[in-house]
């Protein structure tokens, strides 16, 4: 599931911080419980469990990232990247 993030362009990855936790260690279990995770794997954005055992399409991922962007600048970068992706996919 985390591999879908590798499909994002560098300018988007620049302001996204992503981390994969393993359920096989204490840190991962604590994170799973803190996020109120239900199933594995789950993709969270800004602490919300958005994709629970579903790999999002790149379109869905962009929509979720744009909705979660914290600044207008981030939204603009994401929108531009999404439009480029739409035009070239």
């Amino acid at each position, binding site marked *: 599931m985390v591999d879908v993030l590798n499909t994002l362009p560098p300018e988007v990855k620049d302001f996204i911080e992503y981390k994969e936790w393993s359920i*096989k260690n204490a840190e991962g279990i604590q994170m799973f419980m803190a996020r109120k995770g239900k199933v594995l794997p789950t993709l969270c954005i800004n602490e919300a469990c958005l994709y629970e055992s579903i790999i*999002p399409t790149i379109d869905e991922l962009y929509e979720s990232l744009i909705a979660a962007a914290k600044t207008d600048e981030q939204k603009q970068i994401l929108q531009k990247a999404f439009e480029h992706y739409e035009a070239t996919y």
Partner: protein
Amino acid sequence: MGKQAVIDAYEGRYTPVVPWVPYVGVHAAYLIGETATKVLQDSDLLAKAVVNAAERYKADGIPLIFDLAVEAMSMGIKAKWFDDNPPTVIEHPLADKTLAEANLKIPGAADGRFPTIIAAGKKVKEQLGDVALIGLVCGPLTLASHLRGAKIFTDMVKKPELAKEIIDFAGKISAESARIYAEEIGCDIVALVEPVGSQVRPDTYDKFVIPACQEGLDVIHKSGKTSALYICGDATKIVENMMYTGASCVCVDEQLNMNYVRDCALKYGRGFGGNLKLTLALSLGIIDPREDALVSLAAGGKIGYTFSPG
């Protein structure tokens, strides 16, 4: 008990005692004091590890190898080796190329890692005794994700023809791999393994995955062997779909409710397997493995059920 009990259960039949199939994977290497990297590339060590694990865990059935990079690596696709895990595919040749441009070939028994696996399988067959040998094949969707990368999940929505072309091609690779396990090695059971199958929607599974599995399942059935589907993750939403794929048995992850899986399997006359909690009980010990085993055995019953890790 033993081989026939596993076959009977996988075929959905009653067994007087529930058979036990531990998916030891590269833990088999650890048990003989070797690394996964070494064991997976040495037929003598692989055979020794599997036979040792089957004896140690008093198995009724055991997989020869649980490594979903075999097919891709045998096509020349790059993977990274680990000493404590199976290798991981790190190259996606169809990420930016068409099938024709990439010129990929379906690997046969003489290609890549297959000669080592075939040699190991024949040695295991000689030594294993009354234990079912299970061949595990990388399923079409998982193999398609190796070939195309994560884009395959978007392709299924935005470019369905391209997705179908790649997944169908992967299905042909799975079918040849299934033939190798069934005919060249003589495995009693061959399963298509789809770890990412649980991460697509039911209609997507029906449209792309079920058709791509048919050639592999036909190969297994025509060789007189028993077929199965193995899935990882929370596959609750597609468990019923898996029951009408055509495979004799469906084996599931620890996250599934075994009562629901049992009811689906009984409805369709399939075998089913699972789901001792691999992470919560066996790995972390958060749940008592003995109590967890009793819960699974109580839910599974004796019709078509095989006790396995999930």
